[in-house]
């Protein structure tokens, strides 16, 4: 109450509802529009469980789970990016500085390599490779990488710069190892890996939604607990501690949460981590002075950006769709440069 009064009238009171509506609009658009033309009446019928079987199958089994997976992953990356940028006080932080995407890449690459010896495919078809394990394997790899970096930085008091440097170093090593693994490979595994690496929502099903949703719910439920510590973590440690914050504990909690969110999403959709870099900046830009709006805006914009970028990728490429990771990177760079012009 006092905050609003003392800060004067805010022009951005409608920002959050506006973007929330936009996100819902984008969701509807993504369900109604696709490579296969389905009349809107049939889409509505399919959503309520009626209409022709093909339309129902396309909407309920292909489009909807894909869009929902995208929304969840977008929220994960965006919130993880916001947390990391806040606690490392580094505006260019994203889940890759905790080695999450590199760790996941290495894990997925290693898994695909060794799966051959476990499964003995006997043929060259993709279906034989156990792709259903990729989300769990990728997530595990990301979490382990995050844990290693945390352990390295912990011995040095978790300085923000220290953790960034540890992250870059470990990330580079993991990346090199993954590339090394890929170098000696057959083409079909490379194809799966490349598709995963470029970040894709292609063929994402309800299983992926079920995999992600517990993390989304748990992660978002913890966020209110972190709201005040997050503000304090943006100060230097001595200042935050003299304000009464248990710095190490809260820093570790925020870090663990961002790693869990990012790693679970990376496992499912691949490293479309650019979302984690851009969306927090967008949220801060639109929130302006209302710092309390940054977090909800990050969540809404994370969902919105991924939905729209995926829709663009699907429509622009038609049958040969462009992976969302490519779209977010291409669209994101100009946005980032424009936003960072304000940074000294």
């Amino acid at each position, binding site marked *: *109450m*006092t*905050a609003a009064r*003392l*800060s*004067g009238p805010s022009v951005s009171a409608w920002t959050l509802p506006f973007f929330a509506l936009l996100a819902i609009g984008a969701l509807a658009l993504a369900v109604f529009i696709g490579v296969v033309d389905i009349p809107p009446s049939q889409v509505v019928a399919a959503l309520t469980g009626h209409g022709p079987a093909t339309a129902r199958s396309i909407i309920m089994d292909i489009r909807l789970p894909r869009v929902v997976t995208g929304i969840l992953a977008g929220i994960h990356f965006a919130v993880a990016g916001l947390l990391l940028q806040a606690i490392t*006080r580094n505006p260019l932080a994203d889940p890759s500085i905790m080695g999450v995407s590199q760790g996941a890449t290495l894990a997925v690459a290693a898994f695909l390599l060794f799966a051959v010896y476990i499964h003995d495919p006997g043929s060259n078809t993709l279906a034989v490779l156990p792709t259903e394990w990729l989300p769990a394997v990728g997530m595990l790899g990301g979490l382990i990488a995050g844990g290693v970096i945390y352990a390295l930085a912990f011995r040095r008091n978790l300085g923000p710069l220290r953790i960034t440097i540890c992250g870059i170093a470990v990330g580079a090593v993991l990346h090199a190892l993954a590339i090394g693994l890929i170098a000696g490979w057959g083409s079909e595994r490379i194809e799966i890996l490349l598709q995963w690496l470029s970040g894709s929502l292609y063929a994402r099903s309800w299983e992926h939604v079920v995999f992600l949703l517990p993390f989304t719910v748990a992660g978002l439920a913890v966020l*209110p*607990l972190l709201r*005040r*510590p997050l*503000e*304090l973590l*943006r*100060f*230097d440690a*001595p*200042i935050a*501690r*003299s*304000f*009464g*914050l*248990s*710095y190490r504990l809260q820093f570790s909690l925020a870090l663990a949460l961002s790693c869990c969110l990012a790693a679970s999403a990376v496992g499912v959709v691949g490293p479309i981590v650019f979302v984690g870099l851009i969306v927090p900046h967008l949220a*801060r830009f639109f929130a302006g*002075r209302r*710092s309390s709006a940054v977090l909800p805006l990050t969540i809404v914009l994370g969902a919105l950006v991924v939905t729209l970028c995926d829709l663009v990728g699907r429509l622009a490429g038609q049958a040969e769709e462009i992976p969302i990771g490519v779209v977010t990177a291409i669209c994101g760079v100009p946005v980032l440069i424009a936003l960072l012009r304000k940074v000294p």
Partner: protein
Amino acid sequence: MRKQMSLSCSRLSVAYGPRMALSDLDLSIEPGEVRALIGPNGSGKSTALQALAGLIQPTRGHAAIDGTPLRSMSRREIARRLAFLPQQPTAPDEMTVEQLVRQGRFAHVGLFRAYRQDDEEAIRWALQSTNLTDFAGRSLRELSGGERQRAWISAALAQEAQILLLDEPTSYLDIGYQIEVLDLIHRLSREKKVSIVVAIHDINQAMSVSDHISLLDRGSLVFDGEPAELARSGLIEQVFRVKGRFVQITPQAPPHFDVELARWNSALPNDARSSITQNSGNRPPADTTAERTSKQG
């Protein structure tokens, strides 16, 4: 019967690697007392304050609030009783004055509790006491150095702690704001019974604001007592390696330290001047008692 001390430490020692930054510091501060901490650069003032605030782990000894050792208290418990303002603190750029001052209430509201009437009161009082009410909505980046310093003091005030540690709160302020801060320190100690330890460079400000002065030299406490006593001791000239004398300007105020500069002696005969250069070593003339680099620093 022993008097109740709000903040105390015994044999408090801090080492940075092999170097002892603070050795065996014994202090006790009564409720409502203003204690000035003076000493050359690198004498351990900031280290002492940080150790008293529980921000650095002492290698030996301990600090205690109301007899309870700091290490047995959580950061929030400490922050409710003790506020600390470091030298030249930095805040996130886009933060407003009010957002900064609000952080001072974290120790009271914790993770969940909504801001109550008394929290809002404390914030309003903290802003008022530092004349920042009109600046509440301004971003810290837009403020002058003096205004920003007052915003930080305001955040420390919002903590409503009974102990306030200030590390050079008047540096970088013009004389008007310096006096404002010193008056605020006095008012807090007398009206709110806040115990205040202030590290300060200006010896005359230290003399005029404090009830007791503690003089540190190379990590050790060399004087602990009343300002007038310090004036008689001759320690200032010795520890800071300057020439000067204490003069009584007004009867009710503590004596004023008047420092001699080399240039004033240029009118003296040659033999007198050479004796001064011998005394003070090969240093540039100091324009104040404080602003000079030191060999220990």
